[in-house]
């Protein structure tokens, strides 16, 4: 899931200087489960901001709410009243949620309350680790189900580099070397031939390097045709 981390309260407080009615919106999906922007974190942020407001005399008035999925317009619309009556909206959802509100209500000032970090899994209670880079071209079929793009510090396609020591990455000695793991995994599966193949450089055009990406599922489109029978382009 999408992992995020709350911005320092002082940073959020600076953003809100001069505002009056502040709406803090959480999201019940990824960031809630990731303990970054669910109902609990919304309450926590407001409690902290209230202290700042009371001490520095900002006069903020808070309203709080959480939506099921902030990245979807239909879920945001029910809280329209609250958004409209606020002069600042602090979104504790990931970058997607914040932008959904910002795009729907262009006149509103929407502030991110979290730093969206990565796509990761909970390794244990309270520990989240990155495992996918959303690069647009999954290569795990030949790396034993371990993603070298996200899990190798240098995103190498032909590892392991010389800095792999005792199976750990030189960049962060707490982190396992992805290519060490790939080698061990492929050995276990009896597929070491895969690692001997010289892998082609990645097609980064499929990632963000190719510009903003978009997926269109034609079969899901509710798309009228014009009189000649050709699809009207959306």
């Amino acid at each position, binding site marked *: 899931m999408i992992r995020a981390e709350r911005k320092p309260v002082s940073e959020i407080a600076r953003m809100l200087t001069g505002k009056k009615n502040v709406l803090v919106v959480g999201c019940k999906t990824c960031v809630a489960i990731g303990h970054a922007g669910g109902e609990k974190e919304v309450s926590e942020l407001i409690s902290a901001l209230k202290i700042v407001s009371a001490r520095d005399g900002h006069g903020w008035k808070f309203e709080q709410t959480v939506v099921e999925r902030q990245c979807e317009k239909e879920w945001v619309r029910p809280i329209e009243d609250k958004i409209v009556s606020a002069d600042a909206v602090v979104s504790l959802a990931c970058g997607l949620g914040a932008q959904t509100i910002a795009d729907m209500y262009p006149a509103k000032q929407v502030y991110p309350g979290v730093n969206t970090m990565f796509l990761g899994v909970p390794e244990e209670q309270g520990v989240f680790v990155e495992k996918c880079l959303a690069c647009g071209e999954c290569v795990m079929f030949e790396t034993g189900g371990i993603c070298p793009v996200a899990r190798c510090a240098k995103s190498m396609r032909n590892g392991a580099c010389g800095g*792999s*020591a005792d*199976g750990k990455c030189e960049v962060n000695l707490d982190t396992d070397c992805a290519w060490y793991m790939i080698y061990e995994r492929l050995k276990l599966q009896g597929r070491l031939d895969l690692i*001997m193949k010289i892998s082609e450089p990645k097609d980064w055009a499929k990632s963000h390097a190719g510009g903003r990406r978009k997926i269109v599922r034609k079969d899901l489109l509710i798309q009228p045709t014009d009189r000649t029978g050709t699809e009207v382009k959306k």
Partner: protein
Amino acid sequence: MTHVSNLQKIMDSGKFGVTGEIGPPRGADPEEMIKLAKELKGSADAFNLTDNQTAIVRLSSIGSAVIIMKEGMEPVVQMTCRDRNRIALQSDLLGASAIGVRNVLCLTGDHQIFGNEKSAKGVFDLDSISLLNTFRNMRDSKKQLSGEELVSAPKIFLGAAENPFGTPYEFRALRLQKKVNAGAQFIQTQAIFDMDWFERWMAEVRKMGIHDRVHIMGGVLPCKSLGAARYMKNKVPGMKVPDSIITRMKAAKDKGQEKEEGLRICVEMIERLKTIEGVHGVHIMAVAWEEMVPYIAKEAKLLPRPTL
């Protein structure tokens, strides 16, 4: 096969090759480097010019190459994938070839986190193996990575580095094979301190027959002090320094003796490298102690360097 560089000629003719290493300065003034080049001239067949080593901003590798070529020395230009994407790498190769650089060492590069620009975006568009493959195709098939034809091909002797001491250990010889398959013609290894380990690795390499297809140059690094040896043992990932080396360094009474002992160990390493089947040369990495290369080469009876 035509020989494009002196280094290639020497090793192809069966002679023991020697390379040194020069770390370019952290400024625009070349004077120091020119002075050093004059001192080092003749002590090795070619000199590596590091490419922003450990991600510290320095005078560029190709720029340095021009400077030492003016002094009549042969450069080995190091190229890392950390700072350039495939466009820049291919363009720099063409540029290097055009000004007469003939030896290129392809590296993935140290991670930017170790350097003095920690916030930099690491490019890592390619890695060392795909870089080798790309350069080989540019040279042999006159094709750039996308498949498009080049107007003219670069002339280069391609090298790579390999670390026999990294993990997974059993993969290290295989990875060398991978690099050779990708086009590496010479290999400079990570600094060797554990010679027994290196010999075991070489035995594996020989078993696979790779030593006939590539010139392996053993890397050696003279230790300046006991502290330096300890640092390499404990702090540098992927480096193996056996306790025997530490013990020997410890026996030294003062700084001067430590230096002498460091040099002595280095010379002994080279002597031993010469006896290993499949090792075609030595790469002397006298980091921050470059002026000692002529001394080491002399002591290891590598001088005078042959001219062909």
